């Protein structure tokens, strides 16, 4: 667990940049969404990294609240995943409708039609 | 320690598969690689559950396994029919 | 009939998974199994294909043989992968199927795929198109032992 988290920053940064790059560089609407998902994935990794590594304090988890209390990383990650999935689904739904309306999912071809 | 070794091994396999996913060249190569990544992730989850003493991760691995196969088949179906809902993939009655 | 056996299998599956035997959870398990059978019934998946209980204990025998085969061929393929010359000789072969049921054919096809070195590409009633990594793995398959064992495992039904 520890060794993985040590690199989680680098992986986070890598996913972040790679995802963002894909979003920007690709004109294909679906590929952009894929990039967006990769970009969002970086968040999950960030939240499992223990704070001590970067000089912070560990999350507040007392015995009393361990079972039920809220700021537990995996609850946060799960929530972030839900958000990510919802975003992806909505994005894909939009792409499908865009394809119906424009007959294309390439950004430049779509913009061409709206001069 | 042994779990760590296993985890590292799985991670290496995972990154190799990821590399293939990026290299392609056909979409089927990518899907194959993604499927292997999925298997790797599943195994990783199992190992990590021992590593971190978090048995509930195994449940997660099972969920992951389900999703992995569904995802792969969904992608294939999409590439084949351009839609997920076509009954072609087995809905029609077969000849024998 | 299939419904009842399905229920029993699913309920057993629940108890295995659960590990807790409080009245609440056990009754919930029963309810869950019933619900799933009902839904599965709606889906028309409760039949001999979806629920091959009739295979019974022959499963154990076949699987242990298959496990051994898998290990052997996985080892072979691994050696090829780590060999610097990568000595492969990929080929496509057709193998005849002797099974009588769909489940049998599928079992055969999946067994082929599960064994590293061969994958079933096209499956039909009479024959399976197989992609083999090497000539020897193709030859081993063409010898037909697996086919026989699956047919036996499938039973006389």
């Amino acid at each position, binding site marked *: 667990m520890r060794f993985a988290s040590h690199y989680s920053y680098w992986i986070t940064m890598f996913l972040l940049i790679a995802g963002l790059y894909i979003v920007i560089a690709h004109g294909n609407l679906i590929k952009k969404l894929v990039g967006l998902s990769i970009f969002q994935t970086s968040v999950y990794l960030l939240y499992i990294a223990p704070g001590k590594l970067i000089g912070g304090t560990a999350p507040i988890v007392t015995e009393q609240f361990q079972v039920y209390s809220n700021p537990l990383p995996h609850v946060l990650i799960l929530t972030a995943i839900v958000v990510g999935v919802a975003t992806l689904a909505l994005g894909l739904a939009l792409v499908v409708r865009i394809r119906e309306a424009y007959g294309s999912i390439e950004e430049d071809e779509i913009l061409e039609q709206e001069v | 320690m042994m779990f760590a070794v296993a985890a590292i091994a799985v991670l290496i396999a995972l990154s190799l598969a990821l590399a293939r996913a990026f290299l392609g060249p056909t979409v089927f190569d990518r899907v194959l690689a993604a499927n292997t990544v999925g298997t790797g992730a599943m195994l990783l989850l199992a190992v990590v559950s021992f590593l971190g003493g978090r048995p509930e991760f195994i449940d997660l691995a099972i969920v992951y396994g389900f999703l992995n196969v569904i995802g792969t088949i969904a992608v294939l179906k999409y590439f084949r029919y351009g839609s997920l809902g076509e009954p072609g993939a087995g809905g029609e009655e077969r000849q024998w | 009939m299939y419904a009842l056996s399905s229920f029993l299998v699913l309920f057993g599956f629940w108890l295995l998974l659960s590990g807790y035997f409080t009245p609440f959870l056990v009754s919930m398990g029963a309810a869950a199994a019933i619900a799933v059978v009902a839904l599965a019934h709606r889906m028309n998946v409760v039949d001999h294909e979806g629920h091959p209980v009739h295979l019974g204990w022959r499963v154990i025998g076949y699987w242990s043989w298959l496990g051994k085969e898998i290990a052997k061929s996985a080892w072979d393929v691994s050696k090829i992968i780590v060999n610097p010359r990568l000595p492969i*000789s990929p080929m496509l072969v057709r193998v005849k199927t002797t099974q009588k049921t769909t489940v049998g054919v599928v079992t055969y096809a999946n067994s082929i795929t599960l064994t590293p070195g061969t994958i079933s590409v096209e499956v039909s009633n009479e024959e399976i198109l197989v992609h083999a990594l090497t000539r020897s793995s193709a030859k081993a398959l063409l010898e037909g032992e697996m086919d026989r064992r699956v047919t036996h495992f499938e039973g006389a039904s």
Partner: protein
Amino acid sequence: MVAGAVDVLSWASLVGGGVFCVIGGVGLIRMPDFYTRTHAAGVTDTLGAGLLLLGLMLQAGLSLVTVKLVMLGLLIFFTSPTATHALARAAMVRGIKPLLRDGGQEPSKP
């Protein structure tokens, strides 16, 4: 004593599983075409996964965790070949030609 033996066994299983996983990954890179790569992936899915799970089961002993690991194994056992087959078939339908050694029987015919 027994515990020691179990430890050694699970060590071996885990390391072996790990090695096979890596070999599968290497194969995925090294193999020349899609179809041959599926064979490499098969190594990871079968021996790699199997040994790893076995190693974990040995560590878990007779417990709920082992049951779940068995489930996991069964899941892979059923789904992995299915997915691989579906892939290969789809590739063939799509007209991806397999690299064949000359003399290989049967030109591709879906």
